[in-house]
């Protein structure tokens, strides 16, 4: 079992002990019985909170004043523990205790709902990490220290002598430090594996396997630990999930929870087989988002796409309704116009296309990539055309492209502004609005296939390319008001803890 230090008998005074700090690392799962009603309320409220975190993260700079203020408000609305720094254990009042308990339990419920697929896990981890960052930053520095101690997170500090020797390098390794004196700045020295985000972005000095982290950046190491633990825990939870899902009261509730906020995954299409290959060219100009239009164009031009492009575009096409046979025909006819002959195609590429449709290998049915996945993972490199044009194109090229697609100069300026602010999906949505001549698209874009469906809906193509019967749910309220589970009041007798066993 992987939840460290999880032992019932040790906790003599669980209330005070378990929730001593207003921020948690969620090392131990809850050990108590709770009612199904409470289970549901907790889960829905945490989802609301995470959804707010997601929305604010898209529309505001994380950590900015506006971002923090809005999150503050949501915290008090939803009664989650926040900033209340209790001076000593005795003062943990019932209200604060209740809040901390809710924070604890609701987190673990959502682990159950969000452990099942890579996309769900990615979404959940991202929001929880952002949430944690915001809460940790809000702590006063003494509480930060006590939090670290409480959770056994020890980091070595760097001595003055070593600091002086490395002075130049330390200064030029970190934005935070330039301008102030190295001797006045505290540094922690940790193995690079514990500060991957800082390593990845070259935000720290790295020597012989250790990173030198300025005091104020230690949060990143803490976050790294948090992220690693959470992602391991989700993998373990996923393994024990079959047991959980065998509970007929929980199964619909959990699946509802996981669908309510991430939106659909566009993998099962009602429209399958409703598109002919001849339609792809005209559709690519009218209803494809830029990322797919770009891939389509370069495929037609060079009769080839590298792996990243084939995956991104292939799954998108599957999502809009191409059958496996159509897909094979589509790729084969294009590739064989280039350097690949029939034989080579069948040997080297057909497999991976059948794979996409779950017909080979592990037989996983791959889902089309969401915007988040396109934007964040596997960035294009030399020879690649995949990725998100709003994220991965030079501003100048993007501008030219938009011009050639007849977007007005003022429209282009608006789009480029959004891109500059790193709001790639909003930029794409703006592009959607401009090219479809509407003021407000009325949806929030998070998936290339959603872009396609919305466009078809507007252009009246919906007769040919049908939407799914079950549209993605957007407004949090909608989800709260229609719980699919008809028996919310049944009492749960099972020990919640049982669901987190390593199966």
């Amino acid at each position, binding site marked *: 079992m992987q939840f460290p230090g999880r032992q019932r008998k040790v906790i003599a005074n669980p209330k005070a002990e378990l929730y001593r700090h207003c921020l948690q690392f969620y090392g131990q799962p809850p050990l108590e019985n709770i009612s199904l009603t409470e289970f549901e309320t907790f889960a829905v409220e945490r989802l609301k909170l995470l959804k707010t975190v997601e929305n604010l993260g898209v529309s505001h700079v994380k950590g900015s004043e506006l971002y923090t203020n809005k999150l503050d408000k949501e915290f008090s609305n939803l009664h989650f523990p926040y900033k209340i720094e209790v001076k000593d254990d005795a003062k943990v009042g019932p209200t604060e205790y209740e809040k901390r308990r809710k924070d604890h339990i609701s987190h673990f419920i959502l682990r159950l709902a969000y452990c099942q697929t890579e996309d769900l896990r990615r979404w959940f981890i991202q929001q929880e990490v952002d949430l944690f960052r915001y809460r940790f930053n809000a702590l006063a520095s003494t509480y930060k220290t006590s939090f670290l101690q409480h959770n056994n997170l020890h980091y070595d500090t760097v001595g003055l002598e070593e600091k002086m020797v490395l002075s130049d*390098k330390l*200064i*030029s*390794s970190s*934005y935070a430090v*330039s301008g102030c004196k190295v001797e006045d700045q505290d540094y922690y020295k940790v193995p*690079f*594996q514990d500060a*991957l*985000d800082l*390593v*990845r*972005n*070259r935000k720290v*000095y*790295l*020597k*012989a*396997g*250790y990173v030198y982290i300025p005091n104020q950046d230690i949060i990143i190491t803490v976050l790294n630990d948090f992220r*690693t633990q959470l992602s391991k825990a989700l993998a373990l939870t996923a*393994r024990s999930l079959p047991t959980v899902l065998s509970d007929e009261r929980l199964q619909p509730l959990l699946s509802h929870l996981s669908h309510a906020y991430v939106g659909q995954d566009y993998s099962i299409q009602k429209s399958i087989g409703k598109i002919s290959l001849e339609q792809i060219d005209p559709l690519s100009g009218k209803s494809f988002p830029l990322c797919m239009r*770009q891939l389509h164009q*370069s495929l037609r031009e060079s009769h080839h796409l590298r792996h990243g492009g084939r995956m991104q575009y292939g799954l998108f096409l599957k999502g809009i309704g191409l059958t496996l046979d159509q897909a094979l025909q589509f790729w084969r006819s294009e590739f064989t116009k280039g350097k690949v002959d029939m034989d080579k195609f069948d*040997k*080297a590429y057909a497999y991976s296309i059948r794979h996409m449709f779950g017909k080979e290998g592990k037989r996983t049915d791959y889902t089309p990539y969401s915007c988040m996945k396109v934007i964040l993972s*596997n*960035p*294009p*490199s*030399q*020879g*690649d*055309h*995949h*990725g998100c*044009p709003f994220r*991965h*194109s*030079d501003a*100048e*090229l*993007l501008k030219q492209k938009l011009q050639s697609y007849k977007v007005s100069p003022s429209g282009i300026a608006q789009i480029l502004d959004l891109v500059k602010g790193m709001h790639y999906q909003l930029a794409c949505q703006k592009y959607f609005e401009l090219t479809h001549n509407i003021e407000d698209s009325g949806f929030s874009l998070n998936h290339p296939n959603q872009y396609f469906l919305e466009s078809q809906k507007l252009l009246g193509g919906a007769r040919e390319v049908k939407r799914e019967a079950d549209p993605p749910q957007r407004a949090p309220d909608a989800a709260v008001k229609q719980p699919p589970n008809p028996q919310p009041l049944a009492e749960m007798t099972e020990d919640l803890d049982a669901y987190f066993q390593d199966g």
Partner: protein
Amino acid sequence: MTSADYEPASLPDLLPLYYRRLFPFSQYYRWLNYGGVQKNYFQHREFSFTLKDDIYVRYQSFSTQNELEKEMQKMNPYKIDIGAVYSHRPNQHNTVKSGTFQALEKELVFDIDMTDYDDVRSCCSAADICPKCWTLMTIAIRILDRALREDFGFRHLLWVYSGRRGVHCWVCDEAARKLSVAARSAVAEYLSLVKGGEETVRKVVLSDPIHPFIRESLAVVERYFPQYALQDQGVLGHKESVDKVLALVPEDILFMEQIGGGPYYDYTVHIQCQYNMPLSYLLSQSTVKKGQHFEKEIMLQYCYPRLDVNVSKGVNHLLKSPFSVHPKTGRISVPIDFKQLDRFDPFDVPTISRICEELDRPRVGEEEEQVDSKEKDGDMDAVERRRIRDYKRTSLAKYVKILDQFLDGVARSNKGELLKKSDLQKDF
């Protein structure tokens, strides 16, 4: 890149000889067994073979060196790939409960392929290489080797020529083999400076302050740049390539240049472009405007190593094995001696036809028969001893020796904390 002495059609005839008499099985096993420190490390390692007609067999695994030998001599693979160490024997992966068969460890690997430099080399394209562009690989190895050792603290780096158009690096430290996927991708991204696909023109963007890692890397690039880029590649030699460079220079600076005129400090090469503007100036002057590093960016875009991040990221990603043959060129994938890096010549790497032929040549002197004393007192059987004598008579010998030396280093590392510590102090 074809070689005069090799004919792809002869491969099926040569492979049996190669695997029977030349392939360095004992070093190979010694490497992948890592001193037997971890149980079943060799036994749980995936090998995959590419056979005739591109038939690809994955999840091969072997209990002993002997079994590996027998199997390779039976199948005579055109190409050998090495994968991860798994939770179970890979050849039994179908028999274990689904989801439990998992890749646990693998060397941290890097793959640098010349085709990724096509937009910045003028001499060849695609799979072709020549001595002019090979410098790019030399630069790549110098930069990455330094960073992996000094920045990340790794010590056991095996550099290998891929047999055709690139190089591989196997980082074999225990800590490296245990890295998570996230850590591998962080290392690869730390080491990546050239970013963006076909939709990005300026692929290197620097900002202040310049990180020590970039400074160190720049120092390497600057050392090679005048000879490599200006002379060999003639980057400023003709209109198209000059235009390419100009596309990377910020507009305001181009403008200043055109109206400015004036006496510029001149660089090693005196080339005037069609705008009658001494471009060499652009490449020599340090920042014109604070915070702009375009000349550094240009040099890096042209010379900085281009990594295939996906290869490094995955624990279960397969990579071509050292001493595998490249079926197109016939060249053996051999280790590169870092100490002689500038002298490494891919065209001098032996092909399978050459070493097989060398085997048939009459023996020259008695000393060739000598077996190292170290090898003598081992308890090798006759076949093994004979094979050692065999490869020692060919031009493969010096490359096997490089692997031997590398393995001695790895073995020393396994010998306890004390030695490890004193080595660390020596190295840094």
